């Protein structure tokens, strides 16, 4: 049997680097290789590329270029936002509000902050994964200094009311951080009430190892990484020039082709929702319409997700699951449990995430393979659907 091409439907995990991005980065390896801090011409040339990249990213976002701080990725950006904002305060203690479906980068940073005396409240989402701005308002305390809510869920795709939460935070004089890793370049991000925004290049066809934190002018952060005072003292370490150039190119590409790519993603997601939900014993995890365009998360009764991923992998399809058996700690996804997905259904979850190159043929292949994989695994299972 000839090896057919991989149908890659795991773009929420990571994406292939786009050729345009590779082209843009090519010069940074052994031509413009200088250290941006060096005074000589090689250093100045690298500095120019770095600052052009920063300006390009800032203009894509509609923000000031001196508000962008490059990091190693979104995990670092999330940590810098939460821990940096906490440590920059004169007062000890304080309180942060987040949702119970945040990325682990936020949840575990909150755990670390708890040991520094910073308390936190996790607002519960509804069954679709939506944060209620009123619940955020109710969770605010006099000592709350930061709210952190992700713009769009990496697991189930649900979009959050960033604008309302931002307005609320603005009114109450509280910083608002949003993890926009999955949302950036796909949906519009109203930044009015936002003070801090995390992003990562490799989720939108850029390279791995580069992210940024947008820090609204006037927002004080203590650095987590100390050294030569790079990035205006907020993040030391020789700048990742290839990464910055790649990120800028990836973001330009995302914005340039947004009008073609996003409607296609929306259409493919619509197809998935219509056709996958016809398989008996299947549910959608997330919101039918208030969703990122590229993520669709389903659960299948009476089967376990890790074995479904393996069955799909054998058919040349790459996707992911929130099943306990696929996680190192054997716990099902905290996001699915937060959506009150029954625990048996949380084990049988499948996340499909499309990218700029995903086609109808890719979805055809999935829709051809998936029902067979589901019935095969159910035939082995002691649990029967519809009993």
């Amino acid at each position, binding site marked *: 049997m000839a090896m057919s091409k991989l149908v890659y439907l795991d773009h929420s995990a990571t994406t292939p680097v786009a050729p345009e991005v590779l082209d843009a980065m090519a010069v940074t390896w052994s031509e413009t290789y200088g250290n941006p801090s060096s005074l000589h011409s090689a250093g100045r040339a690298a500095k120019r590329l770095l600052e052009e990249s920063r300006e390009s990213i800032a203009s894509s976002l509609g923000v000031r270029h001196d508000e962008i701080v490059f990091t190693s990725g979104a995990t670092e950006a999330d940590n810098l936002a939460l821990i940096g904002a906490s440590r920059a305060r004169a007062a000890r203690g304080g309180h942060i509000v987040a949702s119970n479906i945040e990325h682990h980068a936020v949840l575990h940073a909150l755990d670390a902050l708890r040991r520094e005396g910073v308390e936190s409240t996790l607002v519960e989402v509804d069954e679709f994964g939506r944060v209620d701005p009123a619940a955020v308002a109710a969770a605010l305390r006099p000592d709350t200094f930061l709210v952190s809510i992700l713009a769009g869920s990496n697991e189930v795709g649900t979009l959050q009311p960033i604008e309302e939460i931002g307005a609320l935070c603005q009114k109450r004089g509280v910083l608002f951080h949003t993890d926009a890793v999955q949302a950036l370049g796909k949906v519009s991000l109203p930044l009015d009430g936002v003070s801090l925004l995390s992003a990562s290049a490799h989720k939108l066809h850029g390279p791995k190892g580069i992210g940024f934190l947008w820090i609204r002018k006037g927002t004080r952060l203590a650095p987590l990484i100390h050294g030569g005072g790079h990035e205006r003292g907020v993040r030391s370490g020789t700048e990742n020039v290839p990464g910055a150039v790649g990120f800028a190119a990836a973001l330009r590409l995302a914005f340039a082709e947004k009008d073609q790519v996003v409607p296609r993603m929306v259409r493919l997601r619509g197809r998935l929702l219509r056709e996958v939900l016809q398989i008996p014993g299947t549910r959608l995890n997330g919101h039918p319409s208030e969703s990122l365009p590229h993520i669709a998360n389903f659960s299948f009764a*009476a089967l376990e997700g*890790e074995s479904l991923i393996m069955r799909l992998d054998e058919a040349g399809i790459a996707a992911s699951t929130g*099943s306990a*058996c696929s996680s190192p700690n*054997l716990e099902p996804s905290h996001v699915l*449990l937060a959506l009150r997905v*029954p*625990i048996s259904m949380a084990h049988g979850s499948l996340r499909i995430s499309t990218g700029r190159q995903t086609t109808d043929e890719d979805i055809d292949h999935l829709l051809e393979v998936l029902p067979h994989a589901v019935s095969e695994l159910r035939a*082995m*299972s002691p649990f029967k659907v519809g009993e």
Partner: protein
Amino acid sequence: MYTEKVVEHFRHPHNMGKLADFSAVGKVGNIVCGDVLWLYIRVDKDEEGREILADVSWETFGCTAAIATSSMVSDLAKGKTLEQAIEITNRDVATELGGLPPVKMHCSALAAEALGEAVYDYLVKQGRPIPERLRLRHEHIQKDVAALEKRYAAFLGADEQAKGSPGCGSCT
């Protein structure tokens, strides 16, 4: 992460499904853990009049490793006497599969437990004495079920499928 043998058993599992004329069944695992294994045995006499597991089959809800260990334990148990069957350990199952990732070792424990529970069920149905080790193992499994159900009471309340299915202690 998985050996070729594991993938082979996962792809083409042996002895899958419910036996039409089973003598006893061992039910282990819990949907909370993500692995449930029901192992069916048909006991018959061989030519020398010894009781053997003439047929073995299974139904499993679980990951690749859980399915592969179910398939393997059914192969190992088939044709064995009751005494031989209860001597099959999780290590035997894992070794025959060329090893399992450390995080998946509990799947092989589940497979060996299911076999023990099936033999236990058979002896109880026959009104026969239970070997001490088998009885202790059975009690241990039941204790784990109770602990697990207590731990996940909040989640189980919302979960119809979990009700009445026995638990696994190996992943708690």
